[in-house]
Each structure stands twice: as structure tokens, then as C-alpha cells.
């Protein structure tokens, strides 16, 4: 994607990512975040959650994938900010949960800096209450 090809309002292709319990275990190992609310139902319900939830950082990483797939260059993402609104509850079944990412260009700055405003949902609810990525396009 090149700066000349985008304008305020340009939409990114919508992308959906499945998240299963196995994905949470894999992410725990790769990231080093072994908080049991991400793999143990007993702990999750003890702290008042409906069940095991995805790492917020995994949801953030999936939303970034939608941006870097659009730019075609993972190095283009220079600034990225999210606010975690609602947890992604991941049921203990083969389907798991689905995280859906939509995005729209919110601002086009000088020198090819483009702000993408993301809408990230799971089960029809917004899971990130604010999610903005700034990419540096050629």
C-alpha cells in the first residue's frame, strides 16, 4: 500500500481470526504471559470472569495483523495504541472465539504517515474500545 493510494475514509479489508484454547496456550508460551486466567477455567471464574479469556496482547497482535496485511510491510507500523474494553471469552471447544478486525483511514499526514482507526469485535461486541495504528507508507 502506498500513501498515494489512500485517503481519509479508505477502508481496510475486514479480517476474522479464530482463537482457540490451543492458541492461548501457544501465545502464553511465546510471550511468557502464563497468567492462569488465560488457560484455567477455575482461576478465571474465581476472579469473576465468565471463563478463560484471551490475552489482551494476543487480541492486539491479531488486530495488528490486519494492518500489516493491508500495508504489505510489517515494518510500516510505527505507532500502535489500544484500550482493552471487554475480554474475549474463549470457550473450551474446537471453534473457540472469533476476533474480527475492521479498519478505516482516519488521518493522512505529511510524509506518508497514515492513521488507521480499528474496530475490533468478538461475538458482536467491541473488545478494544480504542485502537489506532499509525503506519509509515512510501
Amino acid at each position: 500500500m502506498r500513501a498515494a493510494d489512500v485517503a481519509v475514509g479508505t477502508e481496510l479489508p475486514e479480517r476474522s481470526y479464530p482463537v482457540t484454547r490451543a492458541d492461548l496456550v501457544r501465545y502464553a508460551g511465546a510471550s511468557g504471559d502464563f497468567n492462569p486466567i488465560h488457560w484455567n477455567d477455575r482461576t478465571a471464574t474465581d476472579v469473576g470472569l465468565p471463563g478463560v479469556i484471551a490475552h489482551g496482547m494476543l487480541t492486539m497482535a491479531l488486530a495488528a495483523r490486519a494492518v500489516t496485511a493491508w500495508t504489505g510491510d510489517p515494518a510500516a507500523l510505527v505507532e500502535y495504541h489500544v484500550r482493552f474494553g471487554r475480554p474475549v471469552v474463549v470457550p473450551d471447544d474446537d471453534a473457540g472465539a472469533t476476533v474480527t478486525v475492521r479498519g478505516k483511514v482516519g488521518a493522512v499526514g505529511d510524509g506518508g504517515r497514515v492513521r488507521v482507526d480499528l474496530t475490533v469485535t468478538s461475538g458482536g461486541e467491541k473488545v478494544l474500545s480504542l485502537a489506532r495504528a499509525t503506519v509509515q507508507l512510501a
Partner: protein
Amino acid sequence: MALDPTLVGRSYPPSAVYEVGREKIAEFAAAIGETDPVHRDADAARAAGHPDVIAPPTFAIVLTLSAAGVVVEDPDVDLDYSRVVHGEQRFTHHRPIRAGDRLVATPVIEAVRSVAGNDLLTTRVDVATETGEPVCAATSMLVARGAS
């Protein structure tokens, strides 16, 4: 219990060096389902203009989560960690993290606030090479929910 506002600006010593490995980057990319070859194939990364494979944009959390642990362990930071949730996260990248980087992470307390009975603690972890080249910053806002 509200956090002490004089904590703002408190910084901590740099972490031990974290050496970024190709296999760790590939493992992290696989865990988030990212298949772009720049994360696992050094030739593909070089063809894209990088000296070696590069990490996905949120990889820095691997270092910064443990680096921020020193703030958590600071006895002056009176936060009930059994009630903490991750409120916000920001990454600012000066360049991608890449295999072979020898990185140090330096935490600083950026803000403390109290909102509606909840304590908010914002830490920033600056990541640089051991020779001082800035690579990225990771800012995390933690929320300790007030006792209901």
C-alpha cells in the same frame, strides 16, 4: 489506597541484555498466526531491506512485560495486583526489532491517577540496543479496580 503521585518520573535500572533470536521471533509469529516470511526467512527479510528477520509489531512485550516487573515489585508502588487488569497498551517503534539485537529495557513510571475509585498506573519501558540505539517504547496502563 491511592498511588503516591510523587512516583511519577521514577525510573529503574536497565534490564540485563536480551538477545533476540531468529527462533524466538518465528515462535512468536507462529503464536499470533502471522505468516509473513520477513519473520522467519532471513533472505526474505534482506530482500525487504532488513539486516535479518524482523519481529512482529507487538513482539516487544516479550521483554517489556518482565522489565515492568521491577515496578510491580517496588514496595513504594502500592497497587493491589490481585485486582489489576491491563487497561491500555502502546508501542512506539523507531525501527523493527530484529534477530541479533542485544536489547536493554529501562522502565519509568509515566503517570499515576485515581479514577472512580480505581488506581491507574502507567509505565513506559524504553527499549534500546546495548550501545544506546533507541528501538521502541512500550507504554502500559494497568488498572487496579477499587474494592466494591
